[in-house]
């Protein structure tokens, strides 16, 4: 079996060829691991100079041969023996120690050969000059602009993070600006288109409104309509959108037969279908737009769909739906409001009141249905309506309800009694004056000033004797003054309370009375 050494794992070419180059190699290497150098004297009578050389430090071995000390550094060994080697009579011969074992030149060379082949030793490279170092360093780092910075940038995660965030926002800003420009351009285009459509609409619309009667408009055939508005335009979604807006805008600003003609035209152009279709949209703003259009153009046929939206979870949808229903329903029974599961906001109450107030003149509105509403805000709204619309016919029902409702509702009922001037409910008012709920007491005290009786005045004096706060004293005293002036004067004159005297002065001052 033959072992073949892989040449790639060894240094094949020796750096020396003969003994001269071998010694030069040893000189360049300075030291070879486990290889030492010494001299031995073959002359049987060596000179005293040689024997006394302190550097070589000869000693006699057991065979009687003088041997120098062992040197690890070749140069030290050589320089120590150089002057004696030239003298033939000295008979100094080199000796080698491999692992402290004496060897000859051939063995030492074999040993170094093996070390070289096994890459245990290398040629000492010449130390470069300063200029060379710079050149070497420069070669090691090839010129690449931003190379160093790029490396630092990616290794510094903080810098990378900050730069990424700034970059992200920069990109977002650019995207947003581009998006805004796009939107602006699109809206400008739409506006320009709308202006063109508007100018196209004005003429034919004016002609239809002034030249045709409502009946003639209703009897217009499609061909006749297309004489006023081109068929292509009238089928366009955008054109129809502009037409809807223009008709509704005119409807708000016109009155008399023009309103009826506009409504007839709205249906003739089948714009009512678009408005009703909007109720099916998923977007709340589209639905409310549809509701406003239905309300504005009196599209009664859409009421069943409107009814479905009255209990929508969206505030705007249900507000507009109820407003539309109240406006357009032939029989305004307020059942829709009664069924509301969501609380009525003040804005909604104001909005519904505006419509109900207007309808109240033409129709009898069943406010009492709201008394049975499960939602407290609806019942409160009903009590307010009784007072605001002056529905005296509902006072009897209210009187039956009042003792059994919550304190908040009692307060609202008291306000209604005060507003209408119900003098028959003093028992209820006096009962409220005895309540533990201070808000109810205040409402009852205020009401008693207008619709209370003698008993109310006595209760108010009792309350004053309990030394309440300044504000309460003022309310109670004001009510007593309205109820019974003599009782008021008697009470004030006998009282030593400084605050009561101040309030008295205020209440009786003709200038401050209404402050």
């Amino acid at each position: 079996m033959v072992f073949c050494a892989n040449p790639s794992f060894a240094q094949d070419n020796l750096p020396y060829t003969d003994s001269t180059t071998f010694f030069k190699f040893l000189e360049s290497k300075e030291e070879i691991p486990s290889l030492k150098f010494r001299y031995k004297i073959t002359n049987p009578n060596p000179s005293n100079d040689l024997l006394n050389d302190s550097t070589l430090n000869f000693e006699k071995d057991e065979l009687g041969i003088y041997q120098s000390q062992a040197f690890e550094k070749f140069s030290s060994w050589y320089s120590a023996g150089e002057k004696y080697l030239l003298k033939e009579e000295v008979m100094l011969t080199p000796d080698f120690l491999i692992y402290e074992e004496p060897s000859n030149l051939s063995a030492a060379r074999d040993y170094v050969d093996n070390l070289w082949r096994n890459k245990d030793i290398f040629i000492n490279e010449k130390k470069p000059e300063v200029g060379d170092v710079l050149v070497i360093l420069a070669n090691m780092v090839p010129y690449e602009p931003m190379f160093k910075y790029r490396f630092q940038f990616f290794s510094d995660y903080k810098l990378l993070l900050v730069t990424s965030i700034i970059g992200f926002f920069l990109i977002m800003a650019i995207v947003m600006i581009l998006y805004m420009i796009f939107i602006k351009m699109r809206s400008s285009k739409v506006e320009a288109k709308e202006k063109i459509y508007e100018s196209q609409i004005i003429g034919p619309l004016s002609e239809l409104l002034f030249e045709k009667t409502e009946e003639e408009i209703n009897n217009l055939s499609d061909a006749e309509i297309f004489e006023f508005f081109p068929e292509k335009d009238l089928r366009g979604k955008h054109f129809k959108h502009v037409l809807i807006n223009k008709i509704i805008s005119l409807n708000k600003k016109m009155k008399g037969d023009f309103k009826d003609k506009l409504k007839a035209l709205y249906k003739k152009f089948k714009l009512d279908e678009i408005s009703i279709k909007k109720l099916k949209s998923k977007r709340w703003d589209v639905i409310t737009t549809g509701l406003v259009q239905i309300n504005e153009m009196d599209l009664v046929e859409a009421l069943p769909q409107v009814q479905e939206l009255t209990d929508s979870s969206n505030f705007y949808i249900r507000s507009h739906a109820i407003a539309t229903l109240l406006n357009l329903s032939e029989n305004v029974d307020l059942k829709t409001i009664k069924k509301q599961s969501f609380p009525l906001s003040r804005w909604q109450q104001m909005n519904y009141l505006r419509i109900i107030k207007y309808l109240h003149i033409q129709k009898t509105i069943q406010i009492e249905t709201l008394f049975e509403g499960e939602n407290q805000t609806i019942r409160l709204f009903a009590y307010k309506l009784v007072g605001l619309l002056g529905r005296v016919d509902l006072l009897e029902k209210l009187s039956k309800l009042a003792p059994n409702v919550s304190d908040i509702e009692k307060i609202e009922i008291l306000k209604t009694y005060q507003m209408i001037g119900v003098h028959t409910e003093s028992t209820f008012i006096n009962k409220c004056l005895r309540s533990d709920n201070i808000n109810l007491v205040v409402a009852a005290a205020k009401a008693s000033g207008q619709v209370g009786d003698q008993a109310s005045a006595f209760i108010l004096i009792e309350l004053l004797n309990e030394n309440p706060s300044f504000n309460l004293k003022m309310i109670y005293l004001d009510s007593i003054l309205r109820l019974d002036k003599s009782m008021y004067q008697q009470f004030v004159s006998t009282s030593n309370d400084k605050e009561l005297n101040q309030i008295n002065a205020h209440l009786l001052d003709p200038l401050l009375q209404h402050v």
Partner: protein
Amino acid sequence: MKKILIIEDDLLISSLVQFRLKKDGYETLLVQDGNEGTKAIDSFNPDLIITDVMIPFKNGIEIIHYARKSKPDTPIIVLSSLGEEEKIVLEAFNLGVADFIPKPFNPNELAIRVKRIFR
């Protein structure tokens, strides 16, 4: 032919009024803001001015003031929404406008009032 200047920023309303007045045989000029309105008072030399109160650049009152100085005898009809700008409407009356038509209005009614003024 009598000349009527209409100053109204709502193109649809003003066009309807113009259409109606043209039908009655009047020569009309339509402008949409106060600046154009004052210029038209001088250049068009109208026999009647119909103006809205709330218009861009110069309001109806400024138009009336200008017309009173420039053409003191030209009658003016004010078109405006009822309820809003109450003070302005009262001021317009104090300045001697011929008539006030609240919005919403009927263009036929406006035409009758115009006819009455020219009589």
